[in-house]
């Protein structure tokens, strides 16, 4: 028995409004209330997993209401194999991030909670959106709370970081606005009585190749900035580093997935020919991102920045999976995004715990923590291995499938990408070693006083650890729900390509 999908999506928004109107200024009450709301959202979202059939590969739990009849857009939401798990990831990460924010958010708790809940609503709507206009509105909307989250509660360079984030993201999404308008017009001129503007409606549009290419490019830029794909990734390191812990978790764990999801939802089904043509170039960019970011991570002294670069690297691999344009790669990219959300989220959480204690993120300041913080160190190593892709943990499934998909398309691409996996092992294990192991000498004697994780932190960390393990071993049920949607996607792509080919050669 599932609740209404729209209600679940809008529940955080209502929670945000309620939080702002709460007459108390007691931080604890505010935190409890807002974390409670997000936990409620997760509980409401969970039944969708059970009730999801997935065999058809099409949208389920659909709800549709007329929105702007003048242009034929509807408030149409639904979940399919591509979006279900990302939707659940949003619901899963938000309450944990909010609970983790307790130590790092010292002021303006009401606004923080409201921003966070607003962000959650925007993300839920985005993943559930079946209407292109709704997708675009949610895409732009999530920028605003993120801007405030980084800018108000972030680190020292937060203003620079957040402005760069906003300008990059909006610069990317404005071409998407034009593309959405153009698609709208194309649909209405093809079918003037159309009352819906769904992704599925747009897949069959007949558009001339020149316009198609421009539209593909417009959407591509938007998604490439978000993913982020080299060389449009420069906004990410400052933004991730300067964001508060909770902000980083959401930024890396969820917002980056928007780009990958966008490719799967829009670029591939609507523009299969252009996607296929651009795939080699995109693969090169992805490889550059994987390797470049991995090398950058290798030389980082700031733990948070290191994790940020590792995010870029992993998302590069996800993009590689997407543009391998086969079932294995695409399914792999979704799984990788899921796993990455968990591992990166957990990594930022752990680094945040260190920062809470010592107000430092520099590796040099730490060392020898394993003796003082055994539980923490165990979790750190576990999560790091999950991110690297140790078989049995979530990262492995996604990485393996992405690499396999890339291999089917081009052996050399996969070979180069594997180097990225090796590098990730290098920098993550090196960072773990430098931070956790070794002696506590005179340079870092402050570490003697470090406390291990307390019960609240365990409570927040445990779900991450558990899910990293679960997704590592129980990949079959997850993939079983993803695969039909992937087949439908590839079928749509095939139909699209055939239609375009027949248009080109009518004789």
């Amino acid at each position: 028995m599932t609740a209404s999908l729209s209600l679940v999506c809008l529940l955080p928004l209502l929670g945000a409004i309620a939080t702002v109107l709460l007459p108390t200024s007691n931080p604890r009450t505010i935190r409890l209330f807002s974390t409670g709301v997000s936990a409620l959202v997760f509980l409401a979202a969970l039944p969708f997993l059970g009730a999801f059939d997935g065999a058809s590969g099409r949208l389920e739990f659909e709800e549709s209401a007329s929105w702007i009849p003048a242009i034929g857009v509807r408030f149409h939401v639904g979940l399919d194999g591509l979006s279900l798990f990302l939707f659940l990831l949003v619901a899963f990460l938000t309450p944990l991030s909010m609970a983790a924010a307790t130590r790092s958010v010292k002021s303006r708790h009401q606004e923080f909670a409201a921003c966070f809940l607003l962000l959650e609503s925007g993300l839920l709507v985005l993943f559930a959106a079946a209407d292109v206009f709704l997708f675009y509105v949610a895409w732009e909307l999530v920028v605003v709370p993120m801007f405030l989250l980084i800018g108000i509660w972030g680190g020292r360079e937060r203003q620079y970081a957040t402005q760069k984030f906003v300008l990059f993201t909006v610069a990317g999404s404005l071409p998407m606005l034009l593309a959405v308008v153009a698609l709208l017009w194309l649909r209405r001129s093809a079918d003037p009585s159309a009352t819906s503007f769904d992704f599925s409606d747009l897949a069959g549009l007949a558009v001339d190749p020149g316009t198609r290419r421009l539209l593909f490019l417009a959407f591509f830029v938007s998604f490439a900035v978000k993913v982020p794909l080299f060389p449009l990734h420069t906004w990410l390191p400052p933004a991730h580093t300067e964001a508060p812990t909770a902000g980083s978790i959401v930024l890396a764990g969820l917002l980056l997935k928007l780009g990958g999801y966008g490719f799967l939802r829009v670029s591939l089904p609507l523009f299969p020919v252009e996607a296929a043509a651009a795939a080699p170039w995109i693969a090169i960019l992805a490889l550059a991102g994987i390797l470049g970011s991995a090398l950058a991570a290798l030389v980082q002294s700031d733990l948070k920045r290191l994790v940020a670069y590792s995010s870029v690297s992993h998302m590069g691999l996800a993009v590689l999976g997407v543009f391998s344009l086969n079932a294995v790669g695409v399914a792999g990219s979704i799984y990788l995004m899921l796993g990455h959300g968990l591992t990166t989220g957990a990594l930022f959480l752990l680094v945040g715990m260190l920062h809470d204690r010592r107000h430092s993120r520099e590796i040099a300041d730490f060392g020898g923590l394993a003796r003082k913080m055994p539980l923490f160190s165990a979790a750190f190593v576990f999560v790091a291995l999950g991110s690297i892709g140790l078989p049995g943990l979530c990262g492995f499934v996604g990485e393996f499938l992405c690499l396999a998909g890339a291999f089917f398309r081009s052996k050399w691409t996969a070979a180069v990408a594997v180097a990225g996996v090796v590098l990730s092992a290098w920098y993550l294990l090196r960072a773990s070693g430098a931070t956790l192991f070794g002696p506590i000498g005179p340079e870092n004697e402050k570490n003697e006083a470090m406390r291990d994780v307390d019960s609240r932190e365990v409570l927040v960390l445990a779900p991450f650890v558990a899910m990293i393990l679960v997704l590592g071993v129980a990949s079959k049920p997850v993939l079983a729900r993803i695969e039909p949607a992937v087949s439908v996607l590839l079928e749509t792509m095939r139909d699209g390509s055939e239609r375009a080919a027949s248009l080109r050669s009518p004789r």
Partner: protein
Amino acid sequence: MSDDAMQSLLCLAPMLNLVIAGLVVLVGEARSPRHAARGWMSAFTLLAILLSFLEVIVIGSRIEGFGVEVFSSLGSVDPLSLFLSGSVLSFTAVVVIASRDTLLRHGLERGEYYALVSFAAAGAIVMVSTSHLFTLVLGLEVMSLSLYALAGYFRTDARSVEASLKYFLVGSFASGFLLFGLALILGGARSLDLRAVAAAFLGGGEDAHSLLRVGSGLLLVGFFFKTAAVPFHMWAPDVYDGSPTPVTGLMATGVKVAAVGAFLRVVLVGLAPARELVSGVFFWVAVATMVGGNLLALGQGRVKRMLAYSSIAHVGYLLVGFAATGAGSATAPAAVLYGTVAYATASFGAFAVVAFLETRSGAPLAFGDLHGLSRRYPFLAAAFAVFLLSLAGIPPLFGFLGKFYVFGSAIGIGMEAGDGSLVVLAVVGVASSLVGLGYYLRALVAAFLKEPDGAALDFRRVRGGVAAALAVAAAFTIWFGLGPAVPFGVSDLWDVAVRAVAPLR
């Protein structure tokens, strides 16, 4: 009185109300003792505006289809004029509400202010309720003269006097263009009625055509001066910056709506056959205005000046709609109307916030004064954010939909007619919107992310009336941006706009 005369008078009622109210306020204040309470003036003016608004609604329910002609075709009351009159009246009302604080702080709440505002609104209504170019210029002049005086209302403030003088000189210069254009059009079309002008474009000989073309060109130049399009925009930043902030609010809202609306009618009816001329001219002016307005706004240090340049940039976006109208788009005219109202709503809000903050600081508002705003005045800052984000075009706000409709109509007609230039316009529009985000972001960063440095503005509650006006403006900005099944949401306003222009197509 004959039926016709009765009808004409009734159609004039909204305008007459305002004139009479202005006169009553003037005389009433002159006759009251020196230190008598003056609160009645703003309430009285508001009542008059409300009455006019009700009359507009009543007239709207009684006329059908194409509307009526009054005073032997010198005036024309139709859905478009009613839509514009209603908008002008709404914005004038909220400006009056938001004015009191500023006036009281300067100790200058006098009858002249309210009278001039009423007269300006009356002139605006005349300007939009006509299909005759002469009446249009008449209304424009009445409105402009009132505004010249209002700009210099703070007599002892050098910047205000400078603003007034600049406005007067440039405005008169622009009127010269308009009148000269009118004279040539009269020569070419033998009449100043817009329909006769259109007929002369279609029929008429070579001589008539050349007269008409030059005349229309001059007319358009006058229009560009009045709306501060680039490169006729030089006066706007100084005038907007120097005038009392509520007056600037009126300039950015009611005056803009009236000017854009009146010239939309000119373009739709009078210049309809002159498609290429219109479309070409608007293309270049739109590009220059969008790019110039947005780029110049980036370097501004005073918030009001930044908003002035943003106003110029927004005129550029609306001109894209004009270009699309010229190219034959069916949705562009409604999009222009919608976009103008969307812009004016958010713009009013932004100026009202600035006006309030200036009553606290006593000096022109700089970006530095915004620091820490979200801590001192959380709801005011939130409203300010709503207005700025709407101006920047972030969904799901009113301003976003305004830009969406305008650019959408440009892309639509561009793809339909295979005319790449209109798609280019939309691309330029979107790119310059990004630049626009730069300066709105600066204000948002100052208000939300920066801590107050040194002397923070002393806190005082936002007065009930102003708070209400701001709340209503913010609510409309969000409401019209969302409006799914809610009554009178975005769809309804769009329908109203569409129906407003329908008789003219």
